[in-house]
């Protein structure tokens, strides 16, 4: 169980933000409650939630679709749209919070290349089949947003909170190579005192 008492600032990945935006009627079991509790916990201890601009763009371009499609597949299209309107509205409110900080960050090509090379090497890890099995894939291909997020964490010396296996599964390896500050698996967070 990971604890967050000493963190003055954390970086959020897209899904962690989106989970917290769902209305009560359409909450995602466990995840919405945990994400809302996490926001409250961090804001109450005056920690800053940092989100780089490319993650905001990702949410506003395709993030809502992905989560709605994952958890509300059976909703008819007009209801999906209505739900997305609600999520967008709640996100605008979250952005206004004084401890929610939007940051511009653009890593150089050389740094991105170092992440690319690391992930090429990860194909040879002993436990890579476990990743493929859990991810239901046969290729290791993290998104450009994932790669930038890793570098952003290193640059800010600040932990990422994510539930994306492309990040959490390779946490130890990325740390060993000194490419990331810290990656915290969202589901492993324990907020109980």
């Amino acid at each position, binding site marked *: 169980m990971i604890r967050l008492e000493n963190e003055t600032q954390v970086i959020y990945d897209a899904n962690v933000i989106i989970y917290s935006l769902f209305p009560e009627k359409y909450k995602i079991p466990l995840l919405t409650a945990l994400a809302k509790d996490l926001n409250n916990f961090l804001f109450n201890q005056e920690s800053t939630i940092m989100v780089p601009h490319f993650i905001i763009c990702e949410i506003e371009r*395709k993030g*809502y679709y992905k989560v709605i499609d994952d958890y509300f597949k*059976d*909703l*008819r299209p*007009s*209801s*999906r*749209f209505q739900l997305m309107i609600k999520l967008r509205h709640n996100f605008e409110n979250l952005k206004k919070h004084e401890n929610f900080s939007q940051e511009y960050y653009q890593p150089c090509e050389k740094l991105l290349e170092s992440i690319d090379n690391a992930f090429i090497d990860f194909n040879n890890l002993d436990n890579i089949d476990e990743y493929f099995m859990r991810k239901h894939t046969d290729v290791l291909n993290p998104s450009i947003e994932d790669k930038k997020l890793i570098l952003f964490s290193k640059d800010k010396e600040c932990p990422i909170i994510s539930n994306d296996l492309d990040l959490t599964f390779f946490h130890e390896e990325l740390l060993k190579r000194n490419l990331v500050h810290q990656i915290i698996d969202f589901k492993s967070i324990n907020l109980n005192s």
Partner: protein
Amino acid sequence: MSTIGHFVYFITCVKDSLSFRDAEDFTEKIRNDFDFRLKVQKFVYIAKYFGWKHSYKYSLYIRGPYSSTLADEYYNEDILKYSPLEIDGFDSISFNDFVDGKTIHYLESASTILYYMGSEKNFTRSDAIEKLQMIKPHIDSEIVCNAYDDIIRLNFFRNNNLYEIIVIDDNLDNEKEILLKQINDYVDYFADFGQCNNSIIVSGSLDYLSMVLENETLDLQMKKDLLELLSNYVLDVKKIYDLCDDNPKVFEYMNLNSLENKFNRIQDYISQELGISLRLYDSEFEFAGCD
């Protein structure tokens, strides 16, 4: 024949009666003030009887005669940036005398009475009271009487040819079926195309319009207006379809703000003027649930 220039000229002539300061204030009120929009609708309708032979098509709705073409025009935020074009024959002084200081209920009554007088011969004072009490119980009968008496005094109907009889197309049901099929085909196509937020915007808005069409029980003229409006929206979706050329990445990065704004205006019309359904934005709107 009416043009945007005529509309701008008209709005400038009635600025004081309509109570707005400048173009910015006009846009602000159009955006946020339902009563103001209602007033513009009634002013333009009544202006026909003061010499402005405009071509806005009006149908009778819950709050009196309403023109969706006119609404489309005044929702254009830059409308008052167009140059005014004088309206030949429009008696702005008499018009302002007639409408100045009048309440919304008075304007609603007067325009509705004019609407009936245009289509029914010998529409009497008691017909006006009876009919308006039935469809507008929120309006005091004294206001209806005043409006009727003012209209008679001005003798609007000495030339009965001012009013055009609307030709009703009895093929509307076929048109509706064809439009519904087009909408539903696009809903299916866009629901997963691109797998992005734009997929939700396009398929969701069309699905809402499909529900509206399935539930409407409008009279023929109102149905015709609605079909025209929705066909226009579907044409915009078709343009998006053509632009994407089956490339999901192009679709994912498209800015659909103007389509969403148009959809919002259609929702306002469906909700406030037709009373068919609430808007998706309204908290009372019930999720339709699972398929």
